[in-house]
């Protein structure tokens, strides 16, 4: 149990520090690397919750596929460091009004997060959940029976997005 607790704090620290590094510094390539680290920490947390399948899928899909494409894009566009002095202060998003709305939104989201955490706290600690999510067989069965509709709708959504991207990329001219 002590080992679990130490591991939890280590993974949680990696996740949170990685997430902070994503937004806290201005080199986009560093941001992608930091978010990969953050996802690896998150994957460790899933392992502690006895859901190794979710943990591995997290790495394969997010760290292994999606973020590689992010990195690809950042490198191809040659996105440079965002320097404070180069910001376009006249852009509407940087006027005081939107900034204040963003501040309010951040406070609301933080409040929601606190509320959610306060509700989760009494369902049990780490390692006390049912290890049901670890069974790939069970997960597959549930996905293709109880959640069949949601699964198929998600597939159609992703296919639509893919076709849209191909059509946009294949358009000649302009």
């Amino acid at each position: 149990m002590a080992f679990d607790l130490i591991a939890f704090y280590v993974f949680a620290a990696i996740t949170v520090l990685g997430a902070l590094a994503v937004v806290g510094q201005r080199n986009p390539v560093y941001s992608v690397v930091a978010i990969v680290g953050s996802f690896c920490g998150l994957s460790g947390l899933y392992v502690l919750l006895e859901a190794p399948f979710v943990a591995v899928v997290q790495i394969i899909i997010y760290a292994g596929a999606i973020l590689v494409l992010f990195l690809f894009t950042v490198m191809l566009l040659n996105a440079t460091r965002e320097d404070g002095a180069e910001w376009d202060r006249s852009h509407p998003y940087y006027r005081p009004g939107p900034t204040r709305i963003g501040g309010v939104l951040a406070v609301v989201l933080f409040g929601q997060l606190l509320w959610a955490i306060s509700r989760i706290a009494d369902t049990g600690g780490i390692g006390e959940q049912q290890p049901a999510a670890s069974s790939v067989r069970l997960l597959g069965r549930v996905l293709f029976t109880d959640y069949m509709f949601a699964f198929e709708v998600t597939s159609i959504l992703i296919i639509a997005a893919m076709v849209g991207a191909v059509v946009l990329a294949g358009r000649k001219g302009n």
Partner: protein
Amino acid sequence: MLDFFFSLFRPPYNWWVAYAAIVGVIFMALQISAAVMVYFERKVSAWMQQRYGPTLVGPSGTLQPIADVVKLIFKEELRPKQADALLFSLAPIISVATCLIAFAPVPFGGSTTFFGWLDEPVALQIANLDVGVLVVFAVASVGVYGIVLAGWASNSKYALLGGLRSSAQMISYELAYGMALATVVLLAGSMSFREIVDAQAGYFGYLVLPSINIPDVIPRWNVFAMFPFGLIAFLLFFTAGVAETNRAPFDFPEAEQELVAGYHTEYSSMRFAMFFMAEYINMVTVSAVAVNLFLGGWHFPLVPEGYGWIMFLVKLAALLFFYLWLRWTLPRVRYDQLMTLGWKILLPIATLNLLAVAAGVIAFGL
């Protein structure tokens, strides 16, 4: 020293000391395997080109890898002035770390006492995970970052192009690779390496389908399962594996004629050696995974399980030799041919193959 090592495996032992010893032994064995592979690469290439290869350092040049490593250690570490210092150092570390971690769930033998040296049989595996197959896949997919970041951080056009090509290639071939893995998972009904290998013990008592009975001659390996679908899956897996490890004929990230040395153009000394080691260890890992998934792991007709690790090493050596054979036989394909092969040929075949195997599993419960 040896007495101390083996005493760790005797009954009043501290399990984590024994565990650390196993991890350490595998860690060292992987690095030594890279050195052995370098020697064999030189010798095999020489043999195929009717040369002698290394002969001067040690008997038949066997100490050549040690000379290579010593040379690399004493070389100067160069870093381009415009390079990104942090990512430039981080990239080789990611490459080596991921290729070493990827071996963790891969078993390389059944329980053995090594001819009675040990009092209790040890399982030749670091971690027997329920999702072991996926862990190898996941860690390998993170390994792309080492190459991509090396390409970007070097701040050199050759390195950047090499890194981009590599990431495109690895993402493309991961699909066929994953489909071939899924075929085996369907056949074995498990994602744990140990269970997949144990499902391959014994013989098929039939040919193609259960209707034609034959004597026990065909080992129950996945490569022979549901002929020819198991074989197709194996060929897909190995082709995608060669592309994943960036070996010839798919060695675009380091195509010398076009990109100098690709993503490691700007690297020298031990940082270069780390990329080099990662490439060879990845070959060993892909071959070991292929042996476990398709070639029956440590099972071999008439060989008891205690000696199975020898058979495993034999099969591993055969696949590694095949890697070298490919490199010195086939010319590098063109980049568009590579992408066509991955997306338009391998992926559809892999998908149809997976469907066929799924239908077979449902129809015959094989």
